[in-house]
């Protein structure tokens, strides 16, 4: 794995000057992924903040081949590109020593929701690609609407904290679990605050043939109603509270990559975000408890599962 010093010397493949908000988590995630992946990649991206802010004609931030097609089809798109690559490789139309990797990107809306079918199809067919979901927990580009990745209780513009309904009334979907059911060779959750772990996961994923998946938390201060400079501290807290456990599943075997020494209460993470503000009113305390229970349950299950799967 590359050291920080080595990484710092690599060419930035997502050029600065793009129009993502200052302090946007998504750009940090993408920069790290591209640093780990190197130049020989083709990237597709679903419609969303990342795409609209990085490729405004006649400019582009992408120093690698980049294709935005539509919102729900980043996976199908990159699978098509990969299919053409396989054909051209097979027919000797591309240089033998040139190996290209394929990365599909999507926001949570473009992955958990509208793009789920396209992703599932691509995973099931076994294309050789890595799909990365940058999960900021809502449809940010259209103005912070709830998605199936939005946490229970969070206020969004379509699940506002109203007088009667206190934000989103449903639990978030566990996409990583859904992806696991496709029995692909590698999948993981990662976070930009732990660049080492993220970098390693990208490198590992790209070294494996077949479909791979990374779910990466990508704080959005506009949607989370948090500080502009808090993307990294909030992603760290998400991991330290076990809201966003860092783990990987390689050929069906689970490894938890980081276990917080002192698992922090979820409220430590939530209280820094305006989208959860209303939950701290006394009448909504049960929602906080519900959230904490959900997190504890998932975390304990992960620990138990890892124990069971330990080689004996």
């Amino acid at each position: 794995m590359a050291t920080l010093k080595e990484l710092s010397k690599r060419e930035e493949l997502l050029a600065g000057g793009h129009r993502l908000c200052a302090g946007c988590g998504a750009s940090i995630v993408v920069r790290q992924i591209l640093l780990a992946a190197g130049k020989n990649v083709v990237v597709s991206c679903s419609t969303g903040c990342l795409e609209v802010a990085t490729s405004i004609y006649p400019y582009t931030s992408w120093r690698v081949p980049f294709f935005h097609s539509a919102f729900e089809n980043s996976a199908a798109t990159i699978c098509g590109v990969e299919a053409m690559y396989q054909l051209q490789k097979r027919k000797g139309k591309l240089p033998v020593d040139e190996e290209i990797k394929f990365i599909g990107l999507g926001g949570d809306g473009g992955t958990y929701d509208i793009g789920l079918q396209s992703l599932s199809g691509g995973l099931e067919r076994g294309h050789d690609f890595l799909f990365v979901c940058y999960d900021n927990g809502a449809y940010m580009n259209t103005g912070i609407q709830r998605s199936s990745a939005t946490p229970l209780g969070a206020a969004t513009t379509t699940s506002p904290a109203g007088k009667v309904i206190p934000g989103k009334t449903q639990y978030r979907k566990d996409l990583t679990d859904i992806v696991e059911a496709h029995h692909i060779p590698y999948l993981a959750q990662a976070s930009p605050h732990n660049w080492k772990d993220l970098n390693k996961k990208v490198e590992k994923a790209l070294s494996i043939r077949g479909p791979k998946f990374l779910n990466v938390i990508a704080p959005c201060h506009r949607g989370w109603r948090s500080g502009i400079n808090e993307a990294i501290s909030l992603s760290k807290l998400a991991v330290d509270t076990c809201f966003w456990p860092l783990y990987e599943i390689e050929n069906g075997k689970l490894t938890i990559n980081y276990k917080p020494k002192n698992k922090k209460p979820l409220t430590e993470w939530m209280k820094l975000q305006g989208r959860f503000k209303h939950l701290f009113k006394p009448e909504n305390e049960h929602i906080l408890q519900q959230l904490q229970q959900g997190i504890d349950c998932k975390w304990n299950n992960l620990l138990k599962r890892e124990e069971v799967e330990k080689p004996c």
Partner: protein
Amino acid sequence: MGKQVAMTGNIAVANAMRQINPDVCAAYPITPSTEVMQQFASFVADGKVDTELVTVESEHSAMSAGIGAAAAGGRVMTATSANGLALMWEMLYIASGNRLPIAMMVINRALSAPINIHGDHSDEMGARDAGWIQMYSENGQEAYDNIIQAILIGESEGVLLPAMVGMDGFIISHSIENLELLEDKQVRDFLGEFKPKHPLLNINKPITMGPLDLQDYYSEHKRQQAQAMQKAKAAILKVAKDYKAVSGREYGFFEPYKLEDADIGILTLGSSAGTTRFVVDLMREKGIKVGMIKLRVFRPFPIEELQQALSHLKALAVMDRSDSFGAAGGPVFSEVRSALYDLPARPKTVNYIYGLGGRDLGISPIERVVKDLQEIHQTEKIKELVTHLTVRE
């Protein structure tokens, strides 16, 4: 030269695809097009083509993967019908807007609801503004010839547009006819290699495709697309000429039949041309000066050529195998009538909506159309502008 075979329209098209040997094909089943990709899958399984077959989970993904593959750089094909084409709607525009010459066979079928698996043109006509070249076929032979030509038309310099070729579901797709297939080598030589100028797979020259394109450039890009569609006219004729040299079969924007000295005419497209031709012959025997024009190319719409071909008629019936609810008639009618508007003298033009959901168009309804036209010719009066033919009252 080619060889005579007896096969269904679908199998003829699958054989065209085998001979074309596209780089990437996406397949998703829907009646009546299923058989095309099924047959093609067996060509793949038997090693008769090199194609990378992507068996997607929906037509939306079929077109999305096709678009990805075409952007990567190479020949891409697929086939679909009705609801499948409708599900692709968003992606049709993205294929043409990105100037990706994908070729698609549309086995024409009625759109739901109510669900109906039989042949009409509501699917393809619904996609008439999607920026695709559109051709329609009378029979399996034409479908075979059209889809081969569609590849080169779309890939032509200055065109770079996707193309769809229609063939009437069941009526043609599932009927066996005698037709001529070219030799495999003839097709491969005719098509040559396609080398796109800016493939995504060129990692040494990274490009961005599908960017956000706002008020400052979008209009120019859309005009370029419109111009490309106009350039497709010359490409269609050039490819037809070259194809004739190989196949001996002649194609243009349309095919007139006994039209030159006709007073009245019927314009149609697709499989109904066969029956219409038969009725024209019957009427001619009775001394009625009726002719037919079979439209092959609907996009780009051959305005000037149609003006020339139709200006001498006194009355014209335009046959539509789909409706455009609330419009001034079916889609073919609206365009033909608009094309005739600027002529100093033009035929009185009426519209017949027929054959929806695969309903048969027999001889007698067409005889009725001829009778109506004769009356319009004599009285110079139109009683009914748009008539639903082959329908119970």
